[in-house]
């Protein structure tokens, strides 16, 4: 065999291997401006990239899960009165290099994918793994909290999951009171399309009654969920807004800015590929002085706000104009690289002992939201191809998570990284 032919076979087969093992996301989607290896041209590449580099992986992932669900559907039908799989959620993660794969319960999630049978999925309900243990609304007073918390404490102690009742009571009540202060600032004023509809705090509690600061693993610790849900009309927000405490005041200020930014960012984008952006989740944190800031998701320590969309298609541009207040605060873990980047790019920050507060440019954040929107829509398109139209199951919800840069840009979240933002795309046909 001639050397030329040998090389030709090798090249052909190498390209075949490349196509099979492809599955590394274009860095344009996951590198943040403060990351090593980032260049100005990388950010621009995101607008023209159509996720071709992970297409073969997504085809295998989608095909495999359609096969699994078809088999389960036929199995439960054969059993007659037996049990059926009604919903399935799977998770995809991204490695440090951008490699995409199916992941489990630990680590950061890049995209959550919810599957449902097509015939029964005609509802607006978004899949939730768990329900809340403590539910608050606009009318909940601090004194009402005890009535909900005491039964939880009694149950946890009675079940033996928590041994130290006094410690549990002290910690849980302190967190509940703090959470209640956040809820008082959930009233965003102005005519924004996006508004704060829900605030959630998942507490992870150890057997000794302490609140833990990392995500709960399967088994072991106990999780208690506190949730505030808006009941009344948004039009009464201005009258209801309580600005007595620093937490309530700064929450209200931040929520107003974020509502405006989401409204501005999505005013020029519309539903494509049969999916619609129905919810946006951003997590909050607090400084030592009680000022509320955007923060990364950390189980058992900080609440997350869920923005919903009002039934108005457009709002007056003046209602989301940035004005003089052109930044919002965000907490990030201290890192010399981050400080260097911020100083070089004139991003103001207040240095803390473990975390620092950066002033994020709202104009760039609005562009970041648009980038996040584009990724979500392109992903949704790739996993709902026409070839799956006749399948009995379908993807009802796609939830990509993102890390937020101190510059305001976003990058798809990684397995070992932290996320501040989650977008929820709902399949309009299901």
């Amino acid at each position: 065999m001639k050397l030329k032919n040998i090389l030709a076979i090798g090249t052909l087969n190498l390209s075949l291997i490349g196509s099979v093992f492809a599955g590394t996301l274009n860095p344009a989607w996951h590198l943040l401006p403060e990351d090593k290896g980032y260049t100005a041209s990388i950010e621009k590449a995101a607008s023209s990239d159509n996720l071709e580099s992970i297409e073969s992986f997504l085809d295998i992932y989608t095909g495999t899960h359609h096969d699994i669900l078809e088999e389960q559907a036929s199995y439960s039908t054969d059993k007659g009165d037996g049990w059926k799989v009604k919903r399935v959620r799977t998770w995809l993660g991204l490695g440090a290099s951008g490699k995409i794969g199916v992941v489990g319960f630990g680590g950061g999630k890049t995209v959550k994918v919810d599957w449902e049978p097509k015939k029964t999925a005609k509802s607006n309900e978004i899949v939730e793994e768990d329900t809340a243990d403590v539910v608050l609304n606009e009318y909940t007073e601090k004194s009402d909290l005890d009535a909900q918390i005491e039964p939880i404490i009694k149950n946890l102690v009675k079940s033996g999951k928590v041994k130290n009742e006094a410690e549990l009571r002290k910690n849980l009540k302190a967190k509940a009171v703090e959470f209640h202060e956040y809820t008082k600032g959930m009233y965003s004023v102005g005519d924004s399309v996006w508004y704060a509809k829900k605030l959630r705090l998942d507490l992870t509690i150890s057997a000794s009654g302490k609140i833990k600061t990392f995500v709960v693993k399967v088994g072991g610790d106990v999780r208690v969920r506190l949730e505030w849900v808006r009941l009344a009309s948004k039009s009464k927000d201005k009258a209801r807004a309580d600005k007595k405490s620093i937490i309530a005041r700064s929450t209200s200020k931040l929520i107003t800015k974020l509502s405006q930014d989401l409204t501005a960012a999505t005013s020029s984008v519309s539903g494509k590929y049969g999916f619609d952006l129905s919810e946006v989740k951003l997590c909050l944190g607090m400084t030592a002085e009680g000022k509320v800031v955007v923060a990364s998701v950390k189980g058992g320590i900080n609440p997350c706000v869920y923005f919903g969309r009002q039934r108005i298609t457009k709002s007056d541009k003046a209602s989301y104009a940035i004005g003089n207040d052109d930044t919002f605060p965000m907490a990030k873990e201290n890192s010399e690289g981050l400080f260097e980047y911020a100083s070089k790019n004139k991003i103001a920050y207040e240095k803390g002992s473990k975390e620092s507060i950066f002033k994020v440019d709202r104009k760039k954040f609005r562009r970041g939201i648009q980038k996040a929107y584009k990724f979500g829509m392109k992903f949704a398109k790739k996993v709902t191809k026409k070839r799956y139209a006749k399948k009995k199951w379908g993807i009802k919800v796609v939830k990509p998570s993102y890390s937020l840069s101190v510059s305001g840009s976003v990058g798809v979240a990684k397995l070992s990284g932290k996320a501040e933002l989650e977008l929820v795309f709902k399949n309009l046909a299901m």
Partner: protein
Amino acid sequence: MKVFKKALMVSLIASAVSGNVMAGDEDITLLGLDNNGNEIEMPVKSKRFKKRVNKILKAYLGEAIPALDRAIRSDSKLKLREVDLGVSVKMGFEVPEVFDASVEPGIYVKLGN
């Protein structure tokens, strides 16, 4: 001769891979973190992954959940209607004596009757 050997090796690997693709048994990448927080990446055959997940789900649908329902009914007038289940699917390397590692892709399942 060395070049020929290398090309032959590449051809053999590619043929094996392409054979799997044609047979609908492509690799699906699983990612996870070890106890030290280091990333683990593991390609597994999609057929093997499907078989493992289906086996677990069938065990719950056919035996575990109905048994739980019977136990609840025997003790009260309540009937089990829905179960939320978090399933970890442990997938190890096929040659565990060489690579001692595993990843556990998870699936959240809502079951009902």
